[in-house]
């Protein structure tokens, strides 16, 4: 089993980063995500929102993989998330449902507000300290990569998985930053953010409907990444590990 852990600080408030997390599809870095559906969603009594999503991702095998190691280059991934607007955290666990014996990647992400700060104000000629919401968010990512394949390949598969996962974390952050930019821009618009983003989603020409299954064309922004990886969580592992060809 391989383990990976990393933290990253976003220069945006928790509420915006959480919104970006839920609205992250589609985006140019996630062209290999074929479908995403909410299969369950409910609120707990204390006000947390629990969501379960089922996502289908396309991927390609590394060149050294034996023929027939996987019957098809697609994987079902389940994402379970919890949002607590009072405690200000989003917790999310993602893992693949099939091809588990070959490799299972279980990724956990936690988005938390990065501590509240204080500013001093001059009010009526007196200095007062007032609490301001922190404008930063910490994202902590952990992943467990396990293979039960055997045949002397286990370690190689796990190492490959971990290496690809690490190599694409930076790209996934760029994806989140992209969505955060969109949200910041949207907040300048008169319409509600949610509908604005949905409006953007429906217009984006890089939506996966245009992408044929066997090719990965460069995205509209002019980047030509070898592999696509999504901003965060679930679809990162497949894109990062198997890559796209």
């Amino acid at each position, binding site marked *: 089993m391989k383990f990976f852990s990393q933290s990253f600080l976003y220069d945006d408030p928790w509420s915006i980063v959480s919104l970006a997390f839920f609205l992250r599809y589609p985006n140019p870095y996630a062209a290999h995500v074929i479908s995403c559906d909410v299969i369950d969603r409910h*609120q707990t009594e204390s006000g947390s929102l629990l969501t379960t999503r089922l996502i289908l991702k396309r991927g390609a095998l590394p060149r050294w993989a034996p023929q027939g190691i996987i019957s098809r280059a697609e994987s079902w991934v389940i994402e379970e998330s919890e949002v607590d607007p*009072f*405690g200000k955290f989003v917790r999310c666990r993602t893992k693949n449902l099939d091809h588990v014996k070959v490799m299972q990647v279980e990724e956990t992400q936690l988005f938390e507000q990065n501590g509240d700060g204080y500013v001093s104000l001059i009010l009526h000629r007196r200095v007062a300290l007032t609490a*301001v919401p922190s404008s930063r968010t910490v994202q902590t990512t952990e992943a467990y990569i396990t293979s039960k394949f055997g045949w002397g390949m286990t370690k190689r598969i796990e190492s490959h998985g971990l290496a690809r996962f690490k190599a694409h974390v930076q790209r996934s952050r760029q994806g989140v930053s992209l969505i955060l930019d969109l949200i910041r821009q949207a907040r300048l618009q008169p319409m509600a*953010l949610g509908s604005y983003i949905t409006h953007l989603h*429906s217009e984006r020409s890089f939506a996966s409907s245009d992408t044929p299954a066997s090719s990965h064309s460069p995205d509209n922004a002019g980047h030509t990444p070898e592999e696509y990886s999504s901003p965060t969580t679930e679809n990162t592992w497949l894109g990062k590990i198997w890559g796209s060809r």
Partner: protein
Amino acid sequence: MAHSLSPECTPLKHEYDACFNTWFEGYLEPAIANANTKGHSQSQRIDYSKLKKEEYDRKCGSIWAKYKDCVQKAVTEKGLGELLSQARQENPLREPP
């Protein structure tokens, strides 16, 4: 990924997503509005939660029911039912901390 696992569910998905995204923005409001939300009492949280749940049911309830049905049917058709229920049994997020 603007698609559902089954093409016939895709328009329902879009409609549901639009409704949810708008509601969700409002749902995050306590976090936006308050510097320190950890000071909220349990009863405040419960009240807020009820309010938000009612709003969600009112606005998105019917489209959610249709979308959910469509997805459940597609999941069964694709034979994913058992895989899903196994995975969900191991869910560590079932109860909030």
